[in-house]
């Protein structure tokens, strides 16, 4: 039990948190250190016009060590130019501070395997890109970066809710918020017009109606993965569940809640949509819907902006007849889910200070805006200061990209409304929600929904109600 002497309000989570003597002393120390941090903040691109100073404590800016070597592990970006810019910024940091920075890139589906190996071996990259709730899985190897996040919130404002929930474990930041990869619908305007549809549907019912009209007109279908795709499947079926009022687990994060009439309502909608004309693919992984769209096999699919951006920048086959739309809303409102990446400094790293300094450099506002500009809106910033990113709102912004910006705020995380945890991460990696929908949608939407719900409940209980 903490030696409680009072309580304070955690400004990020609006929860009452015990205020301990240790926390008080820590905050006081950080405040003192922060008085000297001004010039260093400036060096990190901060200084001057701070728009927010609501951070709970002051900060100490990490100093890069000249001669240090840093390895950073991350995914291969779906927009290749974004990787080039990211590496350029790392090299720029390296030459400025005499640090050797190596950026290792592997496909996203391999990233977790390599991360788990590094965590278990206590050896590997100094910085690892953490997807979704990994900081909750690998907490013990993720360095406390609360100080660095506080530096960033002073400069850039509050952290986006989902990045915050994923990065913060028991009140301690275990990763520096890095980015959101918004997921919206990309669709063929020519096919929609041929089917008598003049706009992207705003509700799931209108969406099912649109799928039916495309089918009736003999046009390529709206298609989506219902399989084990780490992005496209999760970003589709979790929002469908939430927007009908369903959830995997109660907000206590301890008891399965999938077996509900709301879940059945979500499945009933999905079965109706499939019967109308939505085509779901249990075998599709993340690249499959991209390929199908570029090959003119489908009319619409839910994805990051890469399909549209590659059409616009590389292929030029359907860019003129492609637009993007926000995820439709259900009876309980608009819910979305996006890919979330944050950077963890690993505890085993001998160059933690340099690694932290590099992350601050990459999150410097000017640097970050260069990155999102080159990524063309595939990424959105995880701090309040990036909400008006010119890539979405500037004079040269592509109006077709606006939908990707609009899906960021309604975003939730797998397991919501329970806070992210080891268990929510396990349920996510086992694709329990996607499998439940997948089973129910077999045989053209005539699968056994009852058995699918019960199986999902049993699997969730196995995770959330398993004795420690």
């Amino acid at each position, binding site marked *: 039990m903490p030696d409680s002497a009072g309580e304070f309000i955690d400004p990020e989570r609006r929860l009452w948190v015990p205020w301990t003597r240790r926390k008080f002393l820590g905050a006081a120390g950080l405040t003192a250190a922060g008085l000297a941090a001004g010039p260093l903040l400036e060096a990190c691109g901060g200084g001057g016009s701070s728009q927010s100073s609501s951070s709970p404590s002051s900060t100490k800016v990490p100093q890069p060590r000249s001669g240090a070597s840093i390895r950073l592990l991350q995914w291969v970006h779906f927009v290749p130019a974004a990787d080039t810019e990211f590496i350029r910024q790392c090299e720029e940091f390296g030459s400025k501070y005499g640090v050797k920075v190596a950026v290792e890139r592997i496909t996203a589906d391999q990233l977790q395997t390599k991360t788990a190996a590094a965590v278990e071996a206590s050896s590997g990259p100094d910085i690892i890109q953490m997807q979704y709730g990994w900081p909750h899985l690998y907490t013990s190897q993720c360095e406390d970066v609360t100080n660095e996040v506080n530096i960033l919130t002073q400069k850039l404002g509050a952290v986006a809710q989902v990045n915050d929930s994923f990065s913060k474990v028991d009140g301690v930041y275990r990763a520096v918020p890095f980015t959101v990869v918004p997921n919206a619908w990309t669709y063929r305007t020519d096919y929609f017009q041929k089917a008598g549809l003049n706009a992207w549907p705003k509700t799931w019912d209108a969406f099912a109606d649109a799928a039916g009209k495309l089918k009736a007109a003999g046009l390529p279908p709206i298609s989506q993965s219902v399989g084990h795709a780490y992005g496209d499947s999760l970003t589709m079926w979790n929002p469908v569940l939430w927007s009908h009022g369903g959830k995997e687990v109660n907000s206590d994060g301890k008891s399965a809640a999938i077996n509900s009439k709301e879940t059945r309502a979500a499945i009933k909608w999905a079965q109706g949509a499939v019967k109308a004309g939505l085509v779901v693919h249990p*075998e599709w992984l993340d690249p499959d819907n991209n390929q199908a769209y570029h090959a003119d096999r489908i009319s619409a699919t839910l994805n990051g902006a890469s399909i549209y951006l590659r059409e616009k920048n590389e292929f030029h086959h359907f860019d003129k007849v492609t637009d993007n739309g926000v995820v439709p809303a259900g009876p309980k409102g608009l819910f979305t889910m996006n890919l979330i990446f944050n950077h963890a400094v690993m505890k085993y790293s001998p160059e933690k200070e340099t690694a932290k300094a590099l992350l601050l450099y990459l999150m410097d506002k000017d640097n970050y805006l260069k990155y999102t500009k080159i990524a063309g809106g595939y990424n959105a910033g995880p701090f309040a200061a990036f909400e008006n990113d010119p890539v979405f709102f500037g004079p040269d912004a592509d109006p077709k990209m606006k939908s990707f910006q609009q899906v960021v705020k309604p975003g939730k995380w797998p397991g919501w409304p329970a806070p992210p945890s080891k268990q929510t991460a396990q349920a996510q990696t086992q694709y329990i929600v996607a499998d439940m929908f997948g089973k129910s949608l077999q045989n053209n939407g005539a699968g056994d929904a009852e058995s699918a719900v019960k199986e999902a409940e049993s699997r969730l209980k196995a995770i959330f109600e398993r004795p420690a």
Partner: protein
Amino acid sequence: MGTIADRVATPGAGRIRSRLAAREARLGYLLLLPTVAVLVVFLAWPFLFGLWLSLTSAELQDPGRFIGLANYKFEFTVDRPFLQAFTNTFLYTGVTTVFKLGLGMVMALLLNQVFPLQRFVRAALLLPWIIPTVLSTLAWKWMFDPTFSVVNWLGVHLHLITYPGPNWFGNTGSALVALMIVNVWRGMPFYGISFLAGLQTIPTDLYEAARVDGASRWQQFIYITVPKLRPVLLVVLLLSTILTFADFQVPFILTNGAPFNSTHVLATWAYQWGVPGGAIGLGAAVSVVLFPLLAVLVAGTLLLLRRPE
């Protein structure tokens, strides 16, 4: 000058011989040491460590505590995908072994004939086994791809199936069949080449004598080929069964459990718990659950090998 035999026969030669033998035995054990060390470090220790982990609540970066058989109880009573993976593993191993055995034998018998470009054909048929599994499995993944399947394209153009053809990885049954096809394709050359080596050791005069006695081709096969191939056949079966039970690459790359966990095998399910899920104790329990059965299988095969024909 006496002969070697003379020298050996002299008094004291026995003592020298026994000293030499003892020295040779020591040298033998010494030469064995590196192999034993490798086996202990890379086989025995990881296996025993895995066994220990399966009895603990270990998670990534947390050694956990001893929980007895709780992980096994959880798997068999609560974890439904485990039961599916358990069944799939037996089905996958059983069906593919039968096909690899049959097709491998046919391949060996054909390759044992004399025909033009014999060596080239022998080498070419080994290709599936030589190509790295990941690469060949990725190629198969494309061939079964629902959008761009060359298998379906061929089937449709040969009027064998109607457009668009089966969604191989989209249905529970066909996804498992697709896994089996790839495994058989990859594993068959191992059987074929091993059987071919065995066939070439069978003396041809046995067949000639059988032909003189009026034995049919089938009788020659049953009464000469099969008994003479028995040792090779048992060893190949044993190795292949163990490798197929533990197959990870093909199921992981082709389906990773999709659709709806219907194609998980024990290896991929162990990975699912242990690596993405971080529950190392559970993952270890899933991976060693087959050990008792495989131990019996190995012991049985070794006994059969010892038995005279």
